[in-house]
């Protein structure tokens, strides 16, 4: 009976969504969305210049946002305040995990004793994955990626060390200090924007030429901050999951 009720509820919900999606002009069918009516068109155009006659790669200077990656421009420039709130949500969830699982001393012992090859090889792989994470974080405004996947890559390199060596414990205090300092830096960046331009988290640096590494104003700085913050948060979550209640 309960299953039938759940099925009916789910089907009605799906039919309602499908119905309302089809009779709205803004949401055309799959594959023919019309961007002219949406706010996204102005994000793509970057119409900071007077005559909006297109953007030239490696040359355009006076753009509204100098990032080659439009998604990054939205996340870290146009909607940076949103991202600040989102990073706060992640901080609160990692704080909640730390409160729930408690401060414990002992690690869960794995049955799998690591041999020599696994230990040495995972150290080498750790460096490669860490460098990939840093690369992805820094080049967020040019290539796909950015602070969020870069931070997750840093955390997964820590996960590799935790899995390969069953004695390994990272210094949790260092992660917590790094995370707090990065959060403070984000706020300081926003306040600097407030003081210089009059708006919180407004870009106050030079945009540079589109497509070069030192461009896009403060987007690389924001993404480095986000990368370190996300990486340290997820690493501390992993450490809490791999330890058990102290004896």
């Amino acid at each position, binding site marked *: 009976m309960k299953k039938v009720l759940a099925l009916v509820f789910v089907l009605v919900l799906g039919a309602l969504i499908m119905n309302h999606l089809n009779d709205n002009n803004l949401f055309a069918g799959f594959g023919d969305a019309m961007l002219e009516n949406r706010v996204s068109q102005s994000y793509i155009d970057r119409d900071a210049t007077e005559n909006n006659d297109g953007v030239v790669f490696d040359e355009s200077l006076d753009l509204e946002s100098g990032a080659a*990656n439009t*998604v*990054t421009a939205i996340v870290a420039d146009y909607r940076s305040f949103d991202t600040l709130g989102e990073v706060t949500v992640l901080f609160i969830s990692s704080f909640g995990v730390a409160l729930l699982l408690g401060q414990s001393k002992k690690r*869960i*012992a*794995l*049955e*799998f004793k690591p041999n020599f090859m696994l230990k040495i090889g995972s150290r080498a792989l750790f460096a490669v994955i860490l460098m990939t994470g840093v690369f*992805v974080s820094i080049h967020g405004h040019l290539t*796909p*990626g*950015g602070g*969020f*996947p870069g931070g*997750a*890559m840093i*955390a*997964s390199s820590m*996960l590799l060390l935790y899995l390969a060596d069953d004695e390994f414990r990272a210094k949790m205090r260092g992660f917590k200090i790094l995370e707090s300092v990065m959060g403070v830096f984000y706020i300081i960046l926003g306040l600097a924007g407030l003081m210089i331009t009059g708006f919180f988290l407004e870009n106050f640096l030079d945009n540079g030429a589109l497509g070069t590494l030192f461009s896009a104003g403060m987007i690389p700085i924001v993404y480095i901050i986000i990368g370190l913050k996300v990486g340290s948060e*997820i690493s501390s*979550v*992993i450490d809490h*999951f*791999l330890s*058990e209640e102290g004896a």
Partner: protein
Amino acid sequence: MLINVLEIIVSILLLLLAFLALSSKSLIKSVMFLSSLSMLSVVAFVLMKAPDVALTEAVIGSGLVTSLFVFTLLATRKVGQKQ
């Protein structure tokens, strides 16, 4: 035309993997099906021209979330623990 066929195949496989993940009896098998579902959704994101989302999902969905599930099962079931 090829893209259309690929979209249909990916859609059917996504639904199949979700059904298997929900209906499997063993919890660890469910977690593994969830991991493959997440990996397949990366293909769906790439087909819809969203490389940023695909990269993030590939790192987080199939790496970190799966490891968190496995750690929970490991700690509670006493699977990998010494006597």
